[in-house]
């Protein structure tokens, strides 16, 4: 069985969000420095942002984590999918998702991307739970 090359991650976000998230991951998980790098879109046109992303793609597998699906980070990243092999774009980045990434980046893409989505989504919660959640629970008792 061939060995899977660990993926590298780029956290591309508005303002300093990417830098803050990567800093948090390093504090919590002590991840290797090159596992995850931050990048901001501040002051960059779509063309220069795409160039900046390309400069950070140094291996055969890169996960590009972006914040807003409708933002310039997400759009420029998805546009790169056409001509950059081994690129995976994940939008709606959050800290639990990134922690999962640094711990599981040796997994094959199909397994890794499914695991990231599950982790990122399941980390969302609200306390107290919204009223609709209570209604669902009452109805499920029959």
């Amino acid at each position, binding site marked *: 069985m061939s060995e899977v090359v660990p993926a590298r991650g780029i956290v591309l976000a508005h303002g300093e969000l990417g830098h803050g998230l990567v800093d948090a991951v390093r504090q919590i998980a002590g991840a290797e420095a090159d596992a995850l790098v931050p990048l901001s879109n501040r*002051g960059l*046109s779509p*063309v220069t942002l795409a160039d900046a992303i390309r400069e950070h793609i140094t291996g055969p597998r890169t996960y590009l984590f972006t914040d*807003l*699906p*409708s933002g*310039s980070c*997400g759009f420029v990243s*998805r546009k790169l999918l056409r001509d950059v092999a081994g690129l995976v774009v994940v939008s709606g980045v959050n800290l639990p998702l990134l922690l999962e990434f640094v711990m599981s980046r040796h997994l094959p893409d199909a397994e890794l991307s499914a695991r990231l989505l599950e982790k990122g989504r399941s980390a969302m919660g609200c306390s107290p739970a919204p009223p609709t959640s209570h209604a669902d629970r009452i109805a499920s008792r029959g």
Partner: protein
Amino acid sequence: MPIVLLRVDERLIHGQVVVGWGNALHPDRIVVVDDDLAASTWEQELYLLGLPNDLEAVFETVDMASDLFGGWKRGGERVFVLTRDVSTMARLAEHGSLHGEEVNLGGIHYAPGRKAVLPYLYLSDEERAGVARLAAAGARVAARDVPGARRVDMDDLIDLKDGSP
């Protein structure tokens, strides 16, 4: 006023437009005016992928937008009209569409040949001339990146007769 925002922003549909201006002005539709994008189905799909479900976007050429502009103004939908550069908005203006309208310059970032006008607005000589063309066509031109920021009249920043600083 169904056209609630006319904006030049090289990122087109992105966070400041969808979240910032969207929450302030509640558009029903975003019209992107761009000859290249109007012919590129795959790029249109990329923009649509990130759009909230309650907002639709269409992509038109300058010629088509000029024909449709009056209908957007009279229609019941609240419309954002976006171009990614000054020259495209100036071409729209020169069809007579923008007389008396305000054009918002939102995000034009640094590139070689451009000089800073505001932190989010860099213009080349050609783009300055394009702003002057907008003014000559009867549009008011102002800069503001997000709704809560200060609106800056472009005639306070450049000479709108010829685009010089």
